[in-house]
């Protein structure tokens, strides 16, 4: 049984982050984008927890907990916005919503 190396959780975190980012950049469905954002947050959490284990410090774990809490709050607001959006526009396609342009 090998010791967990930092590279391993770093790669995992980076891979998840990039997957999430690509998802945010490429997908058009608001819900999917939203899930991808959550994925990015989770990837950061993995990095935090991993480093906490690596350096035997609690700071990383505390940060991870913070991030989870904030992600929860953000999810509420984000989903709320999506709900309002679908009610208003009857669409979840991000390209249909270009109000910021004018």
């Amino acid at each position, binding site marked *: 049984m090998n010791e967990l190396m930092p590279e391993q959780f770093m790669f995992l975190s980076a891979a998840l982050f990039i997957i999430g980012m690509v998802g*945010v950049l490429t997908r058009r469905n608001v819900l999917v984008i939203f899930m991808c954002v959550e994925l990015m947050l989770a990837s950061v959490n993995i990095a935090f927890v991993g480093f906490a284990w690596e350096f035997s410090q609690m700071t990383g774990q505390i940060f991870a907990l913070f991030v989870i809490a904030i992600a929860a709050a953000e999810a509420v607001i984000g989903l709320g916005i999506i709900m309002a959006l679908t009610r208003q526009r009857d669409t979840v396609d991000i390209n249909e*919503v270009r109000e*910021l342009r*004018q």
Partner: protein
Amino acid sequence: MSSWLFLIPLLPLAAAVINFILGRWFLQHASQWLATLAVAGSFILSIPVFLEIVSDEQAISQHLYTWIPAGDFDIPVTLFVDQLTATMLLVVTGVGLLVHIYSIGYMHGDPGIYRFFSYLPLFVFSMLMLVMANNFLVLFVFWEAVGLCSFLLIGFWYRRRSAASAAKKAFIVNRVGDFGFGIGILLIFVTYGTIEYAGVFDMVGDASQTTITVIALLLFTGAIGKSAQLPLFVWLPDAMEGPTPVSALIHAATMVTAGIFVLARAYPVVSQSADAMMVISIVGIATAFVAATIAVTQYDIKKVVAYSTVSQLGFMAFAIGTGAWIAAIFHLVTHAFFKGLLFLGAGSVIHGMHEEQDMRKMGGLKKYMPITYWTFLIGAAANAGIIPLAGFWSKDEIILGTWLYDHTVIMVIAFITAFFTSLYMFRAVFMTFHGEERFNPDEVHPHESPRIMTIPLIVLAVFAATIGFIGFPPEDGWFHHFLINAFPGLTLPDVAWSTIFIFAGISTLIALSGLFIQYMAYVKKSISPAGIAGLLGPLYKLAANRWYLDEIYDVLIVRPLVAFSMFLWRFVDAQVIDGTVNGVATLVTYTSQQWRKAQTGLIANYVFAIALGAIIIIGAFMIFGSNLFQ
């Protein structure tokens, strides 16, 4: 005596202010009496002042207050009377009083009479202050103030386009002269550190010859404007749009002679510069000649007298230029009386002819208005230089001066001009009062003017006939000995009686020949004026069109300046400056518009930009390490 000197100008000022404020609603015609009484008061007060100067031969002055206390530029208002001023005091208040009395008749029934009798005493006040100033700046103040009165009175019938334009023209053209005059005052102050006469005259020699010449010429520039010399005399004939008494007082007797007065006042400066004197005499003789040629061709009776005034002012100017200072002032005094008389006489004719000014529509008026005729004739003869009337003595002395001080060319031209003087004067007399009646007797009923107008005429005629004797015998009269005190360093030349007789003879001959020619032309009809005009061709046209001066100014100055102003406004202001300002604004807007395109509204793009930015920052940080932001 000097403690109530201030009353002399104050009385007309008070009358002017009261008439102006209360005239329209309360005083109405009473304003004419108030003004006349005030000027009469000034005249009466001037007499003892004059007598004191005569007996004491000492200048008197009264300090009133400090006008501008700006550091070392400290300007007092001080009344100052010496022989020159005392002479002017009597002329101004005397002629002024007669013109006031005359105006009561002439302006009778005019709805704006209160304005007239407010401006006229205001003019008398300004003119008195002008001659009583003791420094150049106060002189300049009232120099402008008489210009203001001239403006208001020329434009008295402001509803006439011609009168309004003439008033404006007079003021602006005068201001061209004032431009030079003002710079002259600046130069005097910078050179001598003071602008009070006494201080400046004491130190004249301290400045370089060039400076003195420049100062003298700048002062003369002012005189060119005010005393209607070439090339600025164009305003004076137009100024005849004003009521005739105004022309008599302002544009003949007093204001226009202010330029001559200033030159005489600045005698210690001007006489130091031979170059400046040369210029003055050339300009003077040219003015005298040009104006005389124009006067011969005019048909408007007032214009004839106006050009005659310009010509006589030219005589005074070249008298000063040739060094005949006292003769110039002598001519100023006699001219004030006979030219005032001529204008008032012309006014009487116009009044009797129902506002007709064209001599071609007159003729044979002698029998309708005998008093006007005889007084006008005396004035004309005095102007033409018929012995022994006032104009003869003074003009003859000026021409004698050119001989005494060796200006032969000027003397010859002066004799020619004197011939023209006689021509235009008697032409006016004969065209107006003799020959057949050219007006329509059904429409026009010529009549003699009321007594209030003829009495001033008679008084002036008496003076025009006799005032010359104060200067008798030539170069040695009472007036010369009196005035010589105002010109320190000047000596009266010794003239042999034979020389005097020769000159008097030539003058008289010239004057009589002019009379004779015009008598043949307009009474006997044996000479055809039109024939002569045709013979002269372009020369006649040149004179009749006033040497095209107005047109030249219009083409060379007015139009280009207006066009240039338009260019400044429409191009420099609107295009260049505002263009730059608006250009900056447009640039900002344009740049913003370009940046706006980045705002697609697609969240994906924004996120991509964020990610890209994060990568760039992190990358830079990794490459440069923590030195990046130091």
